[in-house]
């Protein structure tokens, strides 16, 4: 991924959406310093006064992970240790991240952490495989919240869950946002994003192509980038038409706009990389919602070069 710029404020949720394999999870790993050794990063990711991208492993391990950035993982069942109970997970995390000492105090703090995400206390002594998907999700969220990190990073927290469970998980995350946490939610689930997000960032081929207010994105006037529009139109409650073609290889991106080969609005101008202007990086952003005026929507807006 390259050239991604965005910010998340306390009490705000930014949803980062895009197709699988577009580089979303690489971003999350970069922010936590979990990229493999052969990865290269450039730029800055400021959290308070600390730059996450240049911070050393020692700083990341001792002051960032869990303490300043909490991770809600993609697959909670895989994230939890299979041979240990949820109580044991929570107590270890409490001991590691907080100043709580003593067995009784640790036990109380663990139960309190479980309570925060409404994890039922009578399930605390169960192992991960004895939990349903929803409860495993709550356990993982409880672990992410133990260190009271101001920034929560949720990487595809709803993949594979059914709709009711997605709604519940998302509503719970939203509650933590309303409690003053900042939340960066990485997801390909547009319905979940619509439910939770204040703002939406759309990623395509490693770049953020649109960053806008969630209400405007999902409602009117709708997305402005042709890719965002295509992604939204692919939903079964909309026209259910896929974006034609496949996403490009991140290793060999075309010069210019990476979406141009799949785009019905592409022209010669798209051979140059579109700068990110206002809310969108596109030479021909959509100006009207396609449903209203299909012909007018095809007239490219006169963008300044």
């Amino acid at each position, binding site marked *: 991924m390259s050239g991604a710029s965005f910010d998340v404020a306390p009490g705000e949720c930014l949803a980062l959406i895009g197709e699988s394999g577009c580089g979303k999870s690489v971003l999350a790993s970069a922010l936590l310093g979990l990229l493999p050794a052969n990865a290269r990063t450039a730029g800055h990711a400021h959290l308070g006064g600390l730059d996450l991208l240049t911070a050393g492993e020692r700083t990341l391990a001792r002051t960032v992970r869990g303490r300043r950035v909490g991770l809600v993982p993609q697959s909670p069942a895989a994230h939890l240790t299979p041979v240990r109970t949820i109580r044991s997970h929570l107590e270890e995390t409490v001991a590691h991240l907080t100043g709580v000492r003593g067995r009784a105090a640790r036990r109380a703090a663990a139960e309190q952490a479980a309570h925060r995400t409404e994890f039922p206390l009578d399930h605390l002594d169960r192992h991960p495989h004895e939990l349903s998907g929803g409860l495993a999700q709550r356990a993982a969220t409880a672990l992410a919240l133990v260190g009271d990190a101001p920034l929560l990073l949720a990487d595809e927290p709803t*993949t594979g869950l059914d*709709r009711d469970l997605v709604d519940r998980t998302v509503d719970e995350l939203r509650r933590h946002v309303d409690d003053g946490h900042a939340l960066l939610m990485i997801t*390909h689930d547009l319905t979940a994003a619509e439910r939770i997000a204040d703002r939406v960032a759309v990623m395509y081929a490693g770049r953020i192509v649109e960053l806008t207010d969630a209400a405007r994105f999902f409602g009117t006037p709708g997305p402005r980038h042709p890719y965002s529009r295509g992604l939204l139109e692919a939903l079964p409650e909309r026209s259910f038409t896929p974006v034609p073609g496949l996403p490009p290889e991140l290793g060999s991106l075309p010069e210019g706009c990476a979406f141009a080969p799949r785009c019905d609005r592409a022209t010669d101008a798209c051979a140059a990389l579109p700068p990110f202007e206002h809310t969108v990086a596109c030479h021909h952003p959509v100006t009207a919602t396609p449903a209203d005026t299909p012909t007018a929507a095809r007239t490219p807006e006169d963008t300044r070069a």
Partner: protein
Amino acid sequence: MLELRAVTAGYDRRAPVVRDANLTVAPGEAVGLLGPSGCGKSTLARVAALLHRPDAGEIVLDGTPVRGFRHRAPREQRTAIGVVFQQPRLAADPRLRLADLIAEPLRATGRRASAADRVAGLADTVGLTPDLLGRRPHEVSDGQLQRACLARALALHPRWLVCDEMTAMLDASTTAALVRVVEDYRASTGAGLLSVGHDRTLLNRWCDRTVPWEAVAAS
């Protein structure tokens, strides 16, 4: 017809996951089976795909009762059903290139000679580019791997398709693309479909009729 009659199935005879399930899919029909996670719908899908032997009940495939399941199913019944699972990573041998993954059913049924042509055709159908066919599963995205798994399911021209949460791991665009591939295949061959899932909006849009889990199996 693909008929499930009074099927009881599970992994422990004392505690079956599915009790007394009845479901019929007519030729050319698309049936969506809607249920929450953990209700047993995947188990029923495995039974319908002849991949799990029920404790009780009967499966009738095109008028012939099924006598054996998994490797004991007779080849003409086994190959009449194509299956796509929820998690492509778990459904793909990590050692195989995508081309070999798609060709596996062809080779297993003595169609080795025609495999290369058929794989190229299938790859085109599901929208995989030739350079992706030379890669192994860890080198492609979930969406690309699921395209290969769908191509594999279509390789033997099945009369029936069983899709168990085929799109649960995928983004909206890939979901729409794969559903279109399935529907194009069904339109050209008249194959029947049993699609199992939890997304009501998706199944209503995709299938001729959607049945809730409660209407199929006893609680």
